């Protein structure tokens, strides 16, 4: 089955990342790189999003002009930072991949087609 793993960052995590020294941050990025390498056979596609302050949202309204706002579609302490599309047997396998994800603290898993 095909699933999308959505990587979700929290405010605390963003702060931790910011507070890191250069070496530490390099380590953190390297861990993410290793995760992608280890799971390369299952990952069919992945996207890393630019920081949330760059987001623009358009709300389409029937019969009216769309409204364009600065920021993500939900204002909150948790923001989606990237996606990985994976091809695995079932939810348990997707959960196993998510379990070893070394970065941001929330991963949403959804079947995709």
């Amino acid at each position, binding site marked *: *089955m095909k*699933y999308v793993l959505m990587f979700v960052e929290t405010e605390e995590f963003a702060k931790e990342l910011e507070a890191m020294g250069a070496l530490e941050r390099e380590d953190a990025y390297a861990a993410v790189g290793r995760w992608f390498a280890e799971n390369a056979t299952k990952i069919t596609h992945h996207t890393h999003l630019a920081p949330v302050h760059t987001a623009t949202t358009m709300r389409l309204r029937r019969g009216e002009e769309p409204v364009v706002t600065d920021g993500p579609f939900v204002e909150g302490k948790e923001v989606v930072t990237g996606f990985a599309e994976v091809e695995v*047997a*079932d*939810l*348990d396998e*997707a*959960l*196993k991949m998510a379990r070893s994800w070394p970065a941001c603290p929330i991963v949403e898993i*959804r*079947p995709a087609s």
Partner: protein
Amino acid sequence: MTGADPERVSQEALARVVRDHAGRLAASLVSLLGDFSAAEDLVQDAVETALRRWPVEGVPDRPDAWLFTVARRRGLDVLRRETNYRAKLAQLTWVEPAQKDDRLQLIFTCCHPALSLEARIALTLRVVCGLSTAQIAAAFLVPETTVAQRLTRAKRKITEAGIPYRIPDGDDLSERLDGVLAVIYLLFNEGYLSSGGARAQARDLVDDAEWLASLLAGLMPDEPEVAGLLALIRLHRARGAARFDDREQLVLLADQDRGRWDHAAIGAAIALLMRAARAHRRPGPYQLQAAIAACHAEAESFESTDWPQIVVLYDMLLHLAPSPITRLHRAIALRYAVSPEAALDELKDLDRALENYPLLHATRADLLRALRRNHEARECDERALALTANPAQQALLEKRLSW
């Protein structure tokens, strides 16, 4: 407790027969069709037909073959459009159930953590134990439509999210097993003292919980926590007859007539617990809780209970599974092992976590009364009464307040 009611007895016998066969049939149909939801629908249909016809026609000699035949016929009927399933069903004839029991897979699917806890409980009762939607609704005192929706949503999630039908492998097994045990334990608790019920004791759920634990113990003989949970349930049930008086009023442990306990069952449950503990030497929360229940069950009187040992067991339990409710129970043991003052002192830290938990206030009332601080005790009893929905607990607290 209540007088023999032929209607009820036959319902219970019926429930037992269904429970012994529905899960097996579900397991084999899921394997055959590869579709959890479709298989479950067929089994449920067959079960409902059985519940309708068996009281009139009598239970057939081979209930398993009977259920299978009804499910198969129904499958050929409703799956007309799904030629793939039809072809599989058409080829199928009844064979003796295989030696291998596939119900373990069924249990792990029903108790998958990706399902809501309520859904896990409803699904386990329905698929593994063969309860009908109406029976589940009655047991939890919720409308049938609510249960039906819960089940439909859960089955859709299983299919669409790709929740597997298999036993989790190596690393995941112990964590997932904890989840399964939690479902059985919750079911047991709900049945043992249903918190929102008009009936203080929903006996059927306790029976189902014991049956599930015993099924699991048979399927996973090398997991001491499964044996621990089974022993825990059996130890509680062995004291069941003394828990309520003739007027369905709850009797506290201290006041129970220990002659009415089932001492043979207590002995057997303790033996089960000891065997598991010795063979595996992997203590866990259920084994420890069972060991605490065993201390109570073995004591000849409330006074001669080995309270210091119980405090030690609670310390071990808190080490493995910290919880404010466990700390509350430890405090109660501490009262008898040390003093009411010591116990009262322990309760101080629990106010924030258990503010709305009636037993905290009832316990504090008891301790204050032991220290002759009756006015404060009364206030705590009133708090507890305002917080509990269980009629038996309410009656007990009301009795205290009217003194």
